[in-house]
């Protein structure tokens, strides 16, 4: 039987791995699909190409479909997030100059303790900190906002959008003092000698949802079979990726010229969680730095749509309740259950929960039997309770 072609857009980052692995290792073909992967240059490009029907699915920052649902974007057909692709994978970096000041003041760059790092940064930082993030609707921005907010900076940091490949350059030019970006771009800035890694995203929030698989709602309605096949192929690729021994292979595949086009060693750092934090070569090991599957990492909790919606609504002066309701309708837990149940995905009993409540991985009751949920606590113990069940 001939394979059905599907066009997917991705931005070159290690967390595009589920799409690339699904195409390369036959998970797509197994579902009767032939992936045509398009490397994109900007997040706005992913959104616009999806909106115009030039791609069927996109690798996208989780808060993007939330903002789009809230009307904070161009008038496009409805976009739905059908599953998460990854959690974690981000790193916070500071400029070499700032790192030196922090070290002089006694910080040890343990790459673990968010409160200690935040306080050290506050003592060493200039009067007004300039922080780079890849997009104004991104998990990176939310992580930085939460972390710096809790650590009590006197003056609100200035947050600016910097495309990931330009992060190092922007830091070298003195435009940003710190940034939060997905791998391999933080490691790349370390290799260029301009940055030191301060924290993994998971030190601020144990399971920060990072990328999602986003499709047009009208496509989902018109092509339920293809939607299901696409989700299963990518879900199985995520399962393969979370087998620890496969991460080196994944790094080899991702770093090829047609994908990330970088040395495999660079992609390997984030994928294996062995990060080099300074140009001089200090290594820190971070288990679970990026997750693609384990602990229900792909389940698109509606409570996370609400969490992002509330934060974005406050920032843009919109009504939070209305924003949360609209955003939650775009996280399609119904499709996740429908299409991944038969594939063997563990399904939680509810589709919304208390966010930030798990300080360690925990076994809970599932639709059938038991399942393990990943720890998802914020470093300061913040919890978020969605005001609506769905």
């Amino acid at each position, binding site marked *: 039987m001939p394979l059905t072609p599907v066009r997917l857009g991705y931005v070159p980052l290690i967390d595009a791995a589920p799409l690339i692995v699904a195409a390369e290792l036959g998970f797509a073909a197994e579902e009767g699909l032939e992936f045509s992967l398009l490397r994109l*240059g900007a997040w706005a490009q992913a959104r616009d190409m999806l909106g115009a029907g030039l791609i069927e699915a996109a690798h996208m920052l989780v808060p993007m479909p939330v903002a789009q649902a809230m009307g904070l974007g*161009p008038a*496009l057909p409805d976009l739905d997030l059908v599953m998460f692709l990854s959690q974690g994978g981000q790193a916070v970096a500071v400029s070499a100059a700032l790192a030196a000041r922090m070290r002089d003041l006694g910080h040890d760059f343990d790459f673990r303790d968010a409160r200690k790092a935040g306080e050290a940064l506050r003592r060493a930082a200039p009067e007004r900190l300039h922080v780079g993030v890849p997009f104004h609707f991104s998990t990176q921005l939310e992580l930085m906002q939460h972390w710096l907010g809790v650590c009590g900076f006197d003056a609100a940091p200035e947050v600016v959008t910097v495309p990931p490949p330009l992060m190092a350059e922007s830091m070298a030019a003195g*435009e940003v003092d710190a940034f939060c970006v997905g791998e391999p771009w933080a490691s790349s800035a370390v290799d260029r000698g301009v940055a030191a890694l301060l924290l993994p995203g998971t030190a601020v929030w144990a399971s920060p949802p990072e990328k999602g698989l986003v499709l047009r709602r009208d496509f989902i309605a018109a092509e339920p079979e293809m939607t299901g096949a696409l989700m299963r192929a990518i879900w199985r690729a995520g399962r393969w990726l979370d087998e620890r021994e496969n991460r080196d292979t994944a790094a080899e595949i991702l770093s090829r010229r047609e994908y990330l086009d970088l040395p495999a060693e660079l992609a390997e750092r984030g994928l294996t969680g062995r990060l080099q934090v300074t140009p001089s070569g200090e290594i820190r090991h971070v288990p679970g730095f990026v997750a693609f599957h384990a602990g229900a990492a792909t389940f698109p909790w509606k409570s996370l749509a609400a969490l992002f919606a509330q934060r974005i609504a406050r920032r843009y002066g*919109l009504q939070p309740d209305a924003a949360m309701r609209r955003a939650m309708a775009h996280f399609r837990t119904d499709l996740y259950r429908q299409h991944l149940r038969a594939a063997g995905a563990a399904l939680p009993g509810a589709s919304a929960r208390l966010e930030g409540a798990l300080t360690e991985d925990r076994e809970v009751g599932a639709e059938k039997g038991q399942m393990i949920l990943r720890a998802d606590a914020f470093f300061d113990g913040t919890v978020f309770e969605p005001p609506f069940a769905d």
Partner: protein
Amino acid sequence: MFAPRRNPCFARDAGGGRNICPVLAQMTDGARGKGAMRCGCAAKLAPAGTKESRNQMDKRLSIVVIEPDPERAAPIVDGLREIGDHDIRIISEETGLARHIAEFRPDIVLIDLANPSRDVLEELALASGPTERPVAMFVDRSDEHLTRAAVEAGISAYVVDGLRPDRIKPILDAAIARFHMFQRMRAELAATRAALEERKVIDRAKAVLMKARGIDEEAAYALLRKTAMDQGKRVAEIAQQLVLAAGLLSCR
């Protein structure tokens, strides 16, 4: 912290109070500090049909083209010049984009759909406030056909809110035509390169055959072509396989 610097302006439901201020207000805090570019004409809207509003409609448009490659920028600018007397500027640096945009205060920004700097423009589009001239995305406009044509051509446009669609369309049309030209040129270049590559491989395969079987060039090519036909493959594919196999066999 991270307070909303301004209200969102390209929210879909924010279209009620259209602001036809003739300049793009400053959009970065840096520029704001200088205070020189504050526009503040939101309160001074001229009623439709008055002399003032007509002047605003017909004034020269300020267009910014963001393109790091001068060889690509030049034909876009030429194309825009052909359709009217507009003030056109090119921004080629990747850093300091927000500052440059604030300085030029354009009515329209044209940029490659795939340019990473688009994500910076997106932030500017959201960041303008009620007293500033918002930058709306072209895809916000009602002309779906034109929007799709632009995305397909690989171009995106950011347009100051309140600019009439009939003023935008000719500019977009001209830009789309140029971007299509780039796409054709890129395709042609790729095809030429591929053809050249194939030529080289076929020449090497012919040399392998001539040496191994002691035949002349013409016979070698005929053999390659016959094999390709028998296998239902292209000559270049057979040549590639032969060169690969010869390479393996010659390694001891």
